[in-house]
């Protein structure tokens, strides 16, 4: 496939489709008009649907192409429906929409003098810092032994149409799923799906293409979080995001910290949990704290939970721990037990997939 078409396909499945879904969901949730939140929520939605479809198919040891076609079909149908929705409500939405140029202008209009200069400089530092981190992924290589499973599983699906039924070490076919926890966290299959659609070998997608989008996604979440924490004050949001991007470079106490995972092997599901999903949960919790009547945020927390299950076994475990901790704290702070129960309800996917994993393992 021509390189331009491949690039367009990457743009379609990694930007346009998630943004379209995100746009609809954010409208539905009546969230503020933010590119970052649309991008994040759209991706979370895509991952959650994939998780719902893939687990039963992997359990039934279906060939990969069944999942490829089914999921693609579902996404196409939903994408068409989203477009129809956007077109029907175009006028109404268009009134609220703000152009990108206006957005950038708005960011800085409130400031003046030295503060404005400082904002520009800090923004530049932030952009350079993030661009540097992305460039490491794009232009250099990092070898990680876990790729022998995650990446190879995707390659086996891509080349041999098998979902976890080929021994990732030897390449020999096996009767059962080679590693049980992959049944409930099939992130590799999602990347294999992307690889098939854009016609790029999964290893290239994992190591070169995905990090660009995932690092941006991670800092988008940090931006959203800062924007909320600092009451829409762009100055402090920039300081917050820039500080996170700098501190990440130094939170490499061992190879096991969340920052090291984020900056060294972001293509792996567990690194996405550590670097993107946990800050996203914090953002959703904050929204719940501020607008605890917003039922749709609980729903988004619910689908975030499903997509965390897709990413890694760590995602299955960590999201309930966080939901419970924040739920207890917020329920007491607000004196409203419904917050706790709402957040507890959002743990249902983790419990469901956790039980499937335990039962299957036995």
């Amino acid at each position, binding site marked *: 496939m021509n390189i331009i078409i491949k690039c367009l396909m990457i743009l379609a499945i990694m930007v346009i489709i998630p943004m379209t879904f995100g746009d609809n969901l954010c409208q539905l949730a009546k969230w503020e008009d933010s590119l970052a939140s649309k991008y994040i929520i759209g991706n979370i939605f895509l991952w959650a649907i994939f998780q719902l479809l893939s687990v039963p198919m992997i359990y039934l040891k279906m060939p990969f192409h069944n999942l490829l076609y089914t999921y693609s079909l579902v996404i196409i149908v939903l994408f068409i429906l989203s477009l129809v929705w956007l077109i029907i409500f175009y006028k109404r939405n268009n009134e609220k929409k703000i152009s990108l140029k206006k957005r950038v202008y708005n960011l800085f209009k409130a400031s003046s003098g*030295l503060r404005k200069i400082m904002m520009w400089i800090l923004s530049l530092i932030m952009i350079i810092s993030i661009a540097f981190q992305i460039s490491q992924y794009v232009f250099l*290589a990092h070898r990680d032994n876990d790729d022998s499973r995650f990446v190879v599983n995707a390659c086996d699906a891509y*080349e041999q149409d098998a979902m976890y039924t080929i021994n990732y070490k030897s390449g020999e076919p096996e009767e059962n799923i080679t590693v049980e926890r992959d049944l409930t966290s099939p992130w590799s299959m999602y990347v294999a799906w992307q690889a098939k659609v854009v016609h790029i070998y999964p*290893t290239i997608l994992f190591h070169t293409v995905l990090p660009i989008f995932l690092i941006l996604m991670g800092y988008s979440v940090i931006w959203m979080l800062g924007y909320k924490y600092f009451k829409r004050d762009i100055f402090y949001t920039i300081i917050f995001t820039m500080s996170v991007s700098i*501190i990440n470079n*130094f*939170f*490499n106490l061992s190879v096991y910290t969340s920052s090291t995972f984020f900056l060294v092997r972001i293509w792996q599901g567990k690194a996405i949990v*550590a670097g993107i999903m946990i800050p996203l949960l914090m953002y959703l919790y904050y929204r719940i704290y501020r607008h605890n009547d917003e039922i749709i945020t609980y729903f988004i927390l619910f689908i975030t939970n499903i997509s965390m299950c897709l990413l890694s076994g760590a995602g299955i475990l960590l999201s309930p721990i966080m939901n419970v901790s924040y739920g207890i*704290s917020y329920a007491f702070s607000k004196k409203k037990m419904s917050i706790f129960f709402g957040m507890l309800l959002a743990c249902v996917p983790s419990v469901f997939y956790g039980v499937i994993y335990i039962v299957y393992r036995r």
Partner: protein
Amino acid sequence: MNYTDVFTEMQQYIRYWVNGNYFFVFIFLIALAFIFVKSKEKRKTIVFPVIILIMLIYNPIMYKYVWYHLINEEKVYWRLFWCIPFVPVIAAAIAELISILNDVRLKIVVLIFTLVLVAICGNSLYTNYDFYGDRGGTPFYKVNNFYKLDDNIVSIANLINDGTSIMIPEDEMFQLRQYKAETKVYTSDLLNSDSTLNMLSICRSAYKNNIDDIILRKNLLQDDTMLKECGYVYNQNKSEILGESYIWYSKKQSNSNTLTVECKKGFNNIGYMILKDSLDRFAIIDGGGNSNINIIHNEILENSGVVQDWIISGMTSKSIYGVYHALWSWEDVNLIHMTGVNYDIDNIERFVSSEDDNESTELEQSCKWYRGASWFRDDADNNIKVLGLDLVNFNTIKVISDNDSIEDLSMVFRLGSKENGVLYVGDITSDRLEEIIQEYGDQLKTKNLVFLTELSNAGDLEKISQPQNIITLYDMQDDEMISIN
């Protein structure tokens, strides 16, 4: 597990996770305290939930009853620490600190100061990456491909023919299948050796897994004699393409699946056999218990140029290698009787302990058999597996006599293939042969019968084994050789 152990284990995890650097944790706690004091809202939205998280995660009771069972199996308790938002909390505290300052210049100074402080207390990812205890440098390196794999691996993968199976060191294997997933790869820790390679084990693994190509790190290979004996040839073209790092061996091509048995008369009228397959892999089998065994071995070595490890005899512990070689090389080998009271068990155990885990178990079993033959008769097993082959109907209690005289050290075995077979009775005595005939009866049927020495009851054996071809090594001329295909 008592609570002291629990606490110690949790401490170890923390130390492991922060790598002994508690400054960063200290900064985090200060940041948390600062947010607590500074912002009433963030106290509720950030500080309280984080405290609950810490209490939940760093909790001996929870560790003992929940975390240990959920996450400790893989020793990844440290993943729970990801929930604690170290970086966002410190960044939020910095932003909060700056928000209380009015002067923009002061804000800049404080921002720079705090970030430098964090950098000093932390550890730079791009200049001091921790390669599992070995610090220094960056985690990234330059390659010339978009797969982001070592360029050597891409070269190797491009040289692999479709449908072939490869044996390659473990580290290389991890990357190879990321480039070419359809490749059947076999690896072993044996190939990653830091010093020299255990060629015997590598050859055995290659044979068992039907490997087409063996790729080794050039600097680790000292001697390829055994590889060649095992049917692999140096692949010059591919090795030259790979340059200095790797060396490539490919399996000799052969369409036939025949076994040749060459019978020869050796020193002191004691005959021996050389077993060869179509790839010229061979084992040498002599008569076993005779006092001149070393002389015979030397004679064989001179004649054939093989290493002593491949010689089967009923006498020395070295013979175990030869037995295995015979067992790998031909299917359906029944070792009917191999006495071995004089086996050097220590040597055998040393040999066994050098194997990788999987094979060790199998070899362990075979060693029990050897032991059983000599010392542990009560544990004797009638169906013993050696490298996946059944050694059927071997009964140590009945076959082995207490007499460890020199005559009792003979080896008697039958090599069987689908249509052909050789029954070899070595230099067994007439009495022992009688016992064996009684014991095995019809199982001794064979197409070829080989006698090493003259036996008074040879006729009885001929009757029961119904051979089409009888070879009496003791009657042969010195330079005569008989081949059985």
